């Protein structure tokens, strides 16, 4: 190998080494960041999407950065003089190779060049051993690759935040359901199927959905049980216990009948407005009945229309039970009273008792009925320590694995005496305690559990107060 060939080879190697060193650093920095993120993400409350992004970023960004670093490093001018001196020292050439390079630039025809070349040539084959790959470059490349692998593995293996993957998945799925229309893949959508697009076009329903969604987020952020699905598809008990819910259509109709029966005057503007608002969420027969009431010109016609409305509301074919209850909310400023909540809860309890006895409400026949049944059982399933008394309810029907994209239903293993699975009607995650065994209505909010939850989440004082207020509000003052 001649001197010139050797110098060219040395220059190429220097470029590669510089490129490898730059690539090592460029790989290591983002890879280390990805590894840290992969460790930190499962410890924080983020969605699975964020974990996916971290995983993909760990897989893509460091290698890309490494390639870019390699390209940038190979463009750097190598420090040939230092490298030649290093080779001289390594091969004990007394700076002859370096001097030869110097003479080659100034006097390549001189006798000094020829003499130096003659001295150096026998040793040129060994120059590579003087330019090994720097240990730091190897370390950076290995560490970078290890960090990438670590980040990818951690992103794929580690459980989601707080080791409650199911809970996070449900919250996430609920978010996805809210954001997309996939009516046949989730319980939410199967329940929604009873009311179709009418519900989604309802402003009041959207508001309720949004409010409940926010509450679900709060619960999810607190690591508590969130109601599966969106606000409109929450459990019947949760609907009745909602703090902002107005009177149901039944209540409205009942009050109208009472009032018209006594004074016989025409409908007030507020009553008409409430009826119109209720009709937006109602099934077609109910809506038609409401329109008849509004269109009635005489007192007698109005009473008949009201009777027909009552009939249509009470008729099971009008709408699935949950949707009837959910869609019959009205957003007047009238506060729901305990009695209303209890009546609604009892109606739903009756429906579930019938279901648990083997009967399926006519409106819930088929898949929608099964899904709705699951939906009715889902809340409170994880609240096992709140009461394990009583036999599991209707466990056999839900033994099968959930369909892809649907919720993993959780059974409530408890029932309270003859009242049935009272926990199914409570908003999921509400810290309740049961004063007396066998009395569903005896359940009341547990302030100790609230404080425990608030303390365990390390919430700010303002957030903690919001949580307390929320729990008190949804339990109407604690019971």
């Amino acid at each position, binding site marked *: 190998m001649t001197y010139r060939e050797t110098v060219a080879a040395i220059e190429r190697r220097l470029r590669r080494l510089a490129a490898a060193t730059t690539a090592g650093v460029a790989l290591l920095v983002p890879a280390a960041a990805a590894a840290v993120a992969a460790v930190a993400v499962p410890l924080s409350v983020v969605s699975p999407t964020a974990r996916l992004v971290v995983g993909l970023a760990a897989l893509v960004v460091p290698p890309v950065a490494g390639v870019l670093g390699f390209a940038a490093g190979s463009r750097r001018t190598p420090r040939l*003089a230092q490298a030649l001196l290093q080779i001289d020292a390594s091969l004990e050439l007394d700076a002859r190779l370096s001097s030869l390079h110097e003479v080659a630039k100034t006097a390549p025809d001189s006798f000094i060049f020829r003499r130096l070349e003659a001295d150096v040539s026998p040793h040129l084959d060994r120059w590579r051993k003087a330019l090994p790959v720097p240990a730091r470059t190897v370390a950076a490349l290995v560490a970078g690759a290890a960090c990438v692998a670590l980040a990818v593995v951690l992103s794929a293996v580690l459980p989601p935040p707080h080791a409650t993957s199911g809970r996070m998945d449900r919250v996430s799925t609920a978010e996805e359901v809210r954001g997309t229309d996939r009516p046949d893949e989730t319980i939410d959508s199967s329940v929604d199927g009873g009311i179709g697009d009418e519900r989604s076009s309802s402003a009041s329903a959207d508001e309720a959905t949004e409010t409940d969604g926010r509450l679900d987020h709060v619960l999810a952020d607190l690591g508590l049980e969130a109601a599966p699905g969106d606000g409109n598809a929450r459990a019947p008990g949760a609907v009745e216990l909602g703090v902002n819910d107005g009177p149901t259509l039944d209540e409205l109709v009942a009050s109208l009948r009472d009032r018209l029966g006594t004074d016989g005057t025409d409908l007030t503007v507020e009553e008409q407005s409430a009826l119109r608002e209720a009709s937006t969420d109602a099934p077609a027969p109910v809506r038609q009945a409401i329109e008849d009431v509004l269109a009635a010109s005489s007192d007698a016609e109005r009473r008949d229309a009201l009777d027909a409305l009552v009939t249509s509301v009470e008729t099971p074919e009008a709408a699935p039970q949950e949707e009837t209850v959910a869609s019959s909310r009205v957003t007047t400023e009238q506060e729901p009273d305990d009695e209303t909540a209890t009546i609604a809860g009892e109606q739903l309890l009756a429906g579930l008792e019938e279901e648990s006895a083997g009967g399926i409400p006519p409106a819930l026949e088929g898949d929608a009925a099964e899904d709705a049944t699951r939906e009715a059982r889902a809340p409170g399933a994880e609240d096992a320590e709140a009461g394990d008394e009583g036999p599991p309810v209707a466990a056999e029907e839900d033994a099968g694995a959930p369909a892809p994209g649907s919720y993993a239903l959780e059974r409530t293993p408890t029932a309270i005496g003859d009242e049935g699975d009272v926990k199914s009607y409570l908003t999921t995650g509400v810290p309740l305690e049961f004063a007396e065994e066998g009395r569903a209505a005896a359940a009341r909010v547990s302030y100790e559990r609230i404080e425990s939850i608030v303390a365990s989440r390390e919430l700010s004082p303002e957030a903690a107060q919001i949580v307390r207020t929320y729990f008190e509000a949804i339990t109407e003052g604690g019971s």
Partner: protein
Amino acid sequence: MITERDLEAAYGAFTRLREAVETVIVGHESVVRAALIALLCRGNVLLEGVPGLGKTLLVRALAGALGLEFSRIQFTPDLMPADIIGTDIITEEDGHRRFVFSRGPVFANVVLADEINRATPKTQSALLEAMEERTVTVGAHTYALDEPYVVLATQNPIEMEGTYPLPEAQVDRFLLKATVAFPNLEELVDIATRTTEGGGIRLPEPVASAEDVLRARDVVREIPIAEGLRDYVGRLVLATHPGSAHAPAKIREFVEYGASPRGAIAAILAAKAHAFLAGEVNVRPSDIEAVFVPALAHRIILNFRGEAEGIRVGELLSDVWENVPAL
């Protein structure tokens, strides 16, 4: 461009020159080598040592071996610049009187400035132009000095009473500073034998000419030094400055000013000459190491603390050498 023949001839001449000087001078290889390097690099040497160590003999032997004109100037406090460089005197020729320049002892090829630090700075400075420019200016006339020209100055490091330390500007003009050490027992006995037996010490016959020296100077300048080594010398010189990031702790502590750029030039030139004298055609790291202290020692100015604590500049430079890596 020099040829291989030029190199061989120059190397042969200086080998003979060194051998001739060494027939007279016992030991002091480093001092002889410093004188030869100065001759090869068109430089001057400051010899430091106590009296009686053969400094004057060395210079005379060198001049004799080269067949060059030699002059000796004994510096004393009352020595005047005109005593060195010469002066215009009135002469009468054919009935006409006119000024004629009378050349001083500085007009020689090899000048020994003995105990240079005993003269006043004004007189010392009279050598500045001759040492650097190889010219002497008197009145309106500038006279060129014959090449090769070399000044070898001595100074006594012990008797400091009544001396005038050389100004930094003048010290900087010496290519090397060589310390003339006391001979060991073997060398001392050899000196006594040569001096007291036979016809005594006889100066060598000329073995090289001025042309040989001038040709050798050309050869030396052609000797290549690698870019990495030039960079190394630069870093070494910078490390002698207390404000430099590469300066060792002792330099920061005891040095007022570091070596000037002339120091780097001197180190590289001297390294080339050192490689030439070793028969090499390129500068090696060992050449730089050999001339590093002689080329820089007299250019380092200690601060008050360094002077007060008696710090030796050689030790500081050794510290620099150890702390500045070649690669």
